[in-house]
């Protein structure tokens, strides 16, 4: 069993859990993920390893409550255990040889962008972190990013915190100020990653994105996580989740992401009712 050593709410819909998983902690690298099942009959759902402590034998996950599986996860308390926790899965983010990088995180994607930011900073690379949120209430990991970057830009859609605007505006401004990046790493909603890629394409800057399609096994067995990258079919769980953003077919990925929308809406309503029942 995988015990929850610590649980903390980061904003109204995003929580953090520190999980006891010594073998995973020993091997984890930024960019990798785990698949969990909260309970015996739960869905299998992927989450990025957003931090790990090899000595303590723990792995940190940060999740946004969006549907049935994440709601169920959120019902577990500190001291309780997750039924299944498998990882580390996927290929670690490539960082070798990078000297100057812009890391962009959008919404809960910031949680996924944080470990690689930290690693690059530790390696001695110059890291510019740009994070974007819809509004002030949703901001997460601000101090962590500040401590792990040479330049930090906070953007909100409504201007309630940091600067008003999109992460692409901030990126373009930095590029125009003469920052010459070896690479841009963008992690967030598909639409954000798509627009970051369109921006960097203009300036011909290599861009890595972290894809998050629907997954089941995470071992390359089902093909459910397939994407088209440079005209070829790739499995995000074993070939990724990082891919060259200029080659990813984002429109297809956005379509595939909505496969079970109706089912999920129903499941979410059912869970909400259950939760209400439990609280009543």
């Amino acid at each position: 069993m995988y015990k929850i050593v610590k649980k903390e709410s980061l904003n109204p819909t995003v929580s953090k859990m520190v999980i006891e998983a010594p073998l995973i902690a020993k091997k984890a690298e930024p960019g990798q993920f785990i698949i969990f099942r909260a309970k015996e009959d739960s869905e299998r759902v992927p989450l990025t390893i957003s931090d790990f402590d090899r000595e303590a034998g723990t792995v940190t996950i940060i999740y946004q409550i969006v549907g049935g599986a994440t709601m169920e996860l959120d019902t577990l308390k500190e001291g309780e255990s997750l039924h299944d926790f498998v990882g580390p899965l996927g290929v670690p983010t490539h960082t070798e040889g990078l000297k100057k990088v812009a890391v962009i995180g959008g919404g809960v994607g910031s949680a996924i962008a944080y470990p690689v930011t930290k690693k690059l900073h530790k390696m001695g690379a110059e890291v510019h972190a740009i994070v974007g949120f819809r509004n002030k209430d949703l901001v997460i990991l601000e101090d962590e990013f500040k401590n792990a970057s040479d330049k930090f830009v906070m953007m909100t859609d409504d201007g309630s915190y940091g600067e008003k605007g999109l992460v692409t505006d901030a990126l373009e401004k930095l590029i125009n100020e003469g920052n010459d990046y070896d690479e841009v790493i963008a992690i967030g909603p598909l639409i954000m990653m798509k627009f970051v890629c369109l921006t960097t394409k203009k300036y011909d800057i290599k861009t890595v994105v972290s894809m998050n399609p629907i997954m089941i096994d995470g071992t390359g067995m089902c093909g459910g996580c397939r994407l088209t990258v440079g005209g070829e079919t790739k499995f995000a769980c074993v070939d990724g989740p990082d891919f060259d953003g200029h080659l990813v077919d984002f429109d297809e990925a956005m379509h595939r992401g909505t496969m079970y929308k109706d089912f999920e809406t129903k499941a979410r309503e059912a869970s909400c009712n259950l939760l209400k029942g439990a609280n009543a």
Partner: protein
Amino acid sequence: MAERNMSMEKCPMPVQDPDVRNKNFDEVALGYTYEMAVNEARRCLNCKNKPCTSACPVQIDIPAFIERVANEDIEGAYEVLSKQTSLPAVCGRVCPQENQCEGKCVRGIKGEAVGIGRLERFVADYHREHCTEAPVKPESNGHKVAVIGAGPSGLTVAGDLAKMGYEVTIYEALHLAGGVLVYGIPEFRLPKSIVQKEIDNLKAIGVDVQTNMVIGRILTIDELFEMGNEAVFVGSGAGLPRFMNIPGESLKGVYSANEFLTRINLMKAYKEDSKTPIQHAKKVAVVGGGNVAMDAARSAKRLGAEEVYIVYRRGMEELPARKEEVEHAEEEGIIFKTLNNPLEILGDEDGMVCGMKCIEMELGEPDESGRRRPVAKEGSEFVLDVDSVIMAIGTSPNPLIRSTTPGLETNNRGCLITKDENGQTTREGVYAGGDAVTGAATVILAMGAGKAAAKSIDEYIKSKN
């Protein structure tokens, strides 16, 4: 000596009515009653030269076990089976008997072969239901062996070695042990409780089953050796699904058979209250003609599809699936569109499947495999009206283990190379068997490979100490 039964026909297997069963996931074949089994066993002529045995991949002493059934010594029959197979309840259900044991039965020359598989199933089920003895844990010999993958090959190696006293740990990537037996083959053909029972028995004799362990990621084979294992068996199967590389395969509503069946079996999407989403399509095309295709088609029907097609590029005669499964599928209303090949999957503006463009085929000259090669009939394109497509055109071994293990060589199809039938790979101390070596094959071959590997692992470890 019991009287011989000279009926030309096999005692028929009681089955659920096709129109009832194509709406539920309960087992289709209900199994022989005691009387039926004894009666069927009495059709066996107890042939001296045992042609049936020579056609069984694990050489079960068929006349010997059947004779015991004829004499109503079911536990005795079970003992005979146990010498050669560790999964009789499984093989009796899923072996392609018509090409193996039953294909060579002399009673099949004029009439129907003895129902060997059905008898094997009966004996195993009878034993499971009546045996009260708890399995005993053998005394440890102090040697450790690691097994990767909890499919039929891995389970067999683990069981055989544990019985010899080895301390065996199975590492399984999924949250449940059983391999294809739990994630692929549906409940209506192989109830999961049977597989679970086999796994419980292994645990009872001391096998440690560690789930959620993807070897190559969490631990490498080198680390398994560092942890004190003296040998490692790789039974990781052939789980990587193939696609056709035709336009439209990324549309919503296109599944690999592995994804579709995993959602249904492993994740229980067939149950009303399941949390796993699955598309309940109206019209489904399953591409392929093997057991996997039949399972996907029959599962789709059970989820409520009105029309389910098998689209296969060769003819009915060439379907690689077990004969019984093809017959069951036909009875359940699956429509066979043989001699047709998909060209493109068509989608609507939401990216959802709305049809599949196919072309008619005809059989030309035989190819290397001796089968007549299908060739497209020019100008015969047509659109099949479907809202879901399931690709069941084969799988290959997952590259994860080979890419993380120095010294482990594979052939051009990604299958691990073994030096002989004992499963020794190109790396000392590492053995392999089942689909990981042969590519997608059968349960009994995987189990047989596991038996052979257990024997050579034992010899290898003894020779070292």
